[in-house]
């Protein structure tokens, strides 16, 4: 699988179609983001399946934004799974990246990963490796919703109580690109004091994920307290979809927002 991806990346770099390719590299047994600039040197190129499929994914779109801001004239390549592609589309819509300056190389996720992610679309529009797995976007939201509402509130408050305010959920999120973040704003969070209280911190971030979260799951993976953040944001995405007929990243391939983006709720 990785050979097919490498061949494509090699071709993109050799032809000069991209100045660099943001992917993953394994070095000394560890896997991390890497900018490949020489098609002849793709040593260590991996797709992020170390012991299990997708267990070493990183928010490569974040690196893409950072490098693009520094080099706005250059075209860059990036490795994408289904969720990363949804991220790209949303980042194009919100003017964080220019579609004409990004070339994505897609891979499809195996069923085992799609099941863990409860993914709605475990593959990008086009992919050079892997096979389109079945979407099975059910489980965690339904499980928590089956709990009686008063009890459910207790469950969530119990989860939030474990938070150590590391800001990892915000930091790792490829969709949290704001130059000034509410979670650090002076009127929200006094400098030098204990971080903002629960559940305000978590619900503020959850609301910000409305129309933004592309359900990559990296926040849950980065949370030292194992708070099921992804489940919370999945529910937010369901509500936005219901009210506005919009789910980030599922627009047409030109990156246009769905014309229904403001939906029925806009008339209220």
């Amino acid at each position, binding site marked *: 699988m990785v050979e097919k991806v490498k061949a494509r990346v090699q071709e993109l770099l050799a032809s000069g179609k991209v*100045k*660099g390719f*943001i992917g993953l590299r394994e*070095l*000394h*047994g*560890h*896997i*991390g*983001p*890497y*900018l490949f*600039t020489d098609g002849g040197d793709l040593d260590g190129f991996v797709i992020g399946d*170390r012991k299990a499929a997708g*267990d*070493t*994914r*990183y928010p490569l779109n974040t*690196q893409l934004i*950072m*490098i693009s801001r*520094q*080099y706005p004239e*250059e075209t860059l390549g990036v490795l994408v799974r289904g969720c990363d592609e949804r991220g790209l589309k949303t980042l194009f819509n919100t003017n964080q990246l220019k579609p004409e300056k990004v070339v994505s190389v897609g891979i499809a996720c195996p069923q085992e990963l799609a099941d863990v992610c409860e993914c709605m679309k475990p593959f990008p529009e086009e992919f050079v490796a892997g096979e389109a797995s079945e979407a099975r976007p059910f489980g965690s939201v339904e499980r928590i919703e089956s709990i009686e509402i008063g009890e459910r509130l207790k469950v969530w408050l119990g989860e939030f109580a474990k938070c*150590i*305010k*590391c*800001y*990892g959920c915000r*930091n*790792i999120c490829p969709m949290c690109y704001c130059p000034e973040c509410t979670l650090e704003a002076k009127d929200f969070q006094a400098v030098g004091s204990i*971080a903002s209280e629960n559940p305000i911190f978590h619900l503020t971030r959850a609301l910000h994920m409305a129309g933004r979260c592309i359900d990559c799951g990296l926040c849950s*993976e*980065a*949370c*030292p307290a194992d708070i099921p953040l992804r489940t919370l944001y999945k529910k937010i995405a369901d509500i936005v979809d219901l009210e506005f007929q919009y789910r980030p990243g599922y627009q047409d391939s030109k990156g246009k927002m769905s014309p229904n983006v403001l939906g029925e709720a806009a008339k209220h």
Partner: protein
Amino acid sequence: MEYRTVLTTCTYCGCGCGFYLEVLDGRVVGTIPCKTNPVSEGKLCVKGWNVHEFIHSPKRLTQPLLRKDGALTPVSWDEALDFTAKRMREIKEANGSDSVAFLASAKVTNEENYLIQKFARAAVGTNNVDHCARL
């Protein structure tokens, strides 16, 4: 255009979380927790997440300073170490080995901590060894 990720260990506490420092055109611009690190498994605390921020701080000490005539003055490592060794020997000779204490650090490697306690016990002759993690 040069973007590199450099795998390293957090200097803030003795936990030893692993992360990549992101280096863009020679400047350290970010921290990404390393998913394959067996200690931290892709997670960090708020200090670790912001560890890159002190690297380019103008307030950082970049060379040894020695107080000369009441003013901190930049000196070479040789001069700083010679001065320290000389004073330590004088203090030890005047007041005995136990008049000296060694403070090790959670921010250095096990091997460096081993060396400092060995130096304290074998070279100076004291068991006065403590560490900065006694917070």
